[in-house]
């Protein structure tokens, strides 16, 4: 059967990409789809604007924030912040990634768009030390308040350092 290009349905992923590129084409660094999960790497500066745009635009309508998380890439000296957005009407999902400098990771808070980002950003701060500018209450959420490290960064060991009864020969530490 012959397909007529004009009538071909544009895939949901392409719709998202086209909508984003329409206004923020220069911000997009990389697009991939690992395990069929559309992942867009963006420049870090205008992330708040872009998320707000994707929230309001009729084509995308990402009105639900699934999660915010961090990734530490010690070989790049960078910390990535990962946003997962969800359009609950079309069941379309997207992952947005921005990379911040390891020594001073700063980005804007998105609590003005999603109130639910409040705790997620606190968690990302707690574990990776990402500073969300404009966050109403940026303090540790899961770890003890007097912790002085950001434990998910690779330079800090996983194990508790106060134990004396476990050593490398016996426990492979």
């Amino acid at each position, binding site marked *: 059967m012959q397909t007529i290009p004009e009538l071909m349905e544009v895939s949901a992923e392409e719709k998202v990409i086209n909508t984003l590129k329409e206004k923020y084409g220069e911000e997009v660094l990389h697009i991939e789809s690992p395990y069929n999960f559309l992942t867009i790497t963006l420049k870090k500066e205008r992330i708040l604007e872009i998320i707000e745009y994707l929230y309001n635009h009729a084509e995308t309508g990402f009105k639900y924030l699934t999660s915010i998380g961090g990734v530490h890439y010690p070989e790049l000296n960078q910390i990535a912040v990962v946003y997962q957005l969800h359009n609950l009407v079309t069941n379309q999902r997207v992952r947005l990634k921005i990379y911040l400098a390891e020594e001073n990771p700063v980005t804007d808070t998105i609590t003005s768009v999603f109130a639910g980002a409040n705790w997620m950003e606190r968690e990302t701060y707690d574990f990776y030390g990402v500073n969300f500018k404009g966050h109403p209450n940026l303090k540790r959420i899961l770890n003890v308040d007097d912790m002085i490290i950001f434990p998910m960064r690779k330079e800090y060991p996983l194990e*508790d350092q106060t134990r004396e009864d476990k050593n490398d020969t016996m426990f492979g530490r």
Partner: protein
Amino acid sequence: MERVENVTKPGVRMDEKPDGYEGLGFFATSLEKVVGMARKNSIWPLPFATSCCGIEFMATMGAHYDLARFGSERLSFSPRQADLLMVMGTIAKKMGPVLRQVYEQMAEPRWVLSVGACASSGGIFDTYSVLQGIDRIIPVDVYVPGCPPRPEQIIDGIIKIQHLVETESLRRRDSPEYKAMLNTFGIE
């Protein structure tokens, strides 16, 4: 008049009568032994259950293993009325101050039973967020090993606590040694 001797050993005994003198219509023994016997058979535990050891404890309290046989069926969910703090499960560092506060709220005399590998040493959770044994913040009387321990082991721990309760001197909690021991944990 006949002298009755009953050597206190840990374990289940049918004969609970302490050492003393007995004749027609009377029995004489020391106050300490009577108090010890009474306390031993009416320990009110406070279950501080945070994970799978807590599930084993529920089995221990159930009809099959029935901790009530040892006089400990009355759980106290207020630390102020509890005699025995049973810590069962992983204690995160963030929970540490809470556990310590619970211990401090308990009235003397008080005992602590650490159930399972996590409460005793951090267990498999050799990580920055987990307290590596509750004995870093509160004194522990008996440790029960296991991951998780079976109800029989928990009962064994309770029996060992009972032995401590029964044989403890009435003056121990007023002694300078005891206060010094608490001070090493920063507890007044």
